[in-house]
């Protein structure tokens, strides 16, 4: 079991990223909170050492994405997920809310690739390793996702 200091440091370091990945997948704050805590609980109980900070970050990405997918796959969620309101982001500017809505409205398979590439800066090869998909598939997802965003955001994109 990891020490309190280690976990606190990881929360400070990765909480924003975990929160964003949860946002990409989940639609309300309660679900986000659940997965957020689950991810850090897994970190608390994870005994193996990380080779470096990049390795640790990649671990968080994979665990968060998988936790979200598992959560959405669960019997209960499949049967009962309503069209809930997107979590409260009223403090975002109109322009950012529009971009965020567009990203979140993408089909699930594109969202991870778009987020990891355009925000976290991972290459297609790195994303293929994180999401356990072929590199060519990631290229296709990125292209298709980008096209969809362009369609949705119209002339705002170059």
């Amino acid at each position, binding site marked *: 079991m990891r020490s309190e200091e280690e976990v606190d440091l990881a929360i400070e370091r990765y*909480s924003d990223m975990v*929160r964003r990945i949860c946002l990409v997948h989940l639609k309300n704050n309660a679900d986000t909170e659940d997965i957020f805590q689950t991810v850090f*609980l897994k970190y608390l109980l994870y005994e193996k050492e990380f080779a470096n900070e990049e390795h640790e970050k990649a671990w968080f990405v994979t665990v968060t994405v998988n936790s979200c997918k598992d959560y959405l796959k669960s019997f209960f969620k499949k049967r009962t997920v309503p069209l809930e309101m997107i979590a409260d*982001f009223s403090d975002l500017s109109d322009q950012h809310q529009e971009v*965020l809505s567009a990203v979140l409205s993408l089909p699930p398979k594109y969202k991870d690739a778009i987020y990891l590439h355009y925000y976290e800066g991972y290459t297609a090869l790195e994303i293929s390793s994180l999401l356990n998909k072929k590199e060519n598939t990631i290229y296709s997802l990125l292209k298709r996702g980008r096209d969809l965003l362009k369609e949705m955001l119209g002339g705002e994109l170059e």
Partner: protein
Amino acid sequence: MNLSNKIQETFDDVKCKPELKLKTKDYLNEIRLKKNGQNRFNHRKNLIVAFVSLIFVVGIGSYSFLMAPFSYVSVDVNPSLELVLNRLDWVIEAKAYNEDGEVILSDVSLKGMNYKDAITCIAKSEKMKEYLDQDSVYNFTIASGSSHKEAELCLTIESLSSVLDYPYNSIHSDLHCVEEAHKEDLSLGKYTAYQELLQYDSTITIEDCHHMSVEEMHHQTETHKSNCQGGMKHHGGNHN
């Protein structure tokens, strides 16, 4: 502005709220406390299991050590008794091999006694005195898992001569004779005497032995021995 910058800027504004971080830290600390408590409990439980196992192993070991027969001492006057001793020379079983022996054992309790004290107790028993007369002899037959122990037990008997008040013989036998003797329901001493007598008198049977005292058997053996020696002398005389 290109897509990359738009997404960068948008997600830059998405932050984890401090309340969620605090709530998560509290939740994880709670889990940590529970786990530590559980670990302490498991540690304590493991210690208890280890301690109980140790006690069990030591108990079994001690029981095996203390209750395993190691030496046999047969006491035959006419009462025929046998003492089974452990490695520490404590009596773990006292068995009578005839009715007179049963009378003696009904008068004394030998189990748990040191071998020396048990012999003294038998010799001092009022019931035993009833079987002793001027011709009586104590016949001790000893068999042990170690020759060193056999010698030690014989020396103990010698040291008891003042307590016994009557003459005594002490002889060694083999452990395998113990098993054979018990099969025939004879004490080790009587079975050893039977084997000796059988060398001179092939007509003697186990059944006969059940009705004879060890002293009678020894007497018959001695008679046969003297006859043989006499015969040999006589035979030798003829040659001369």
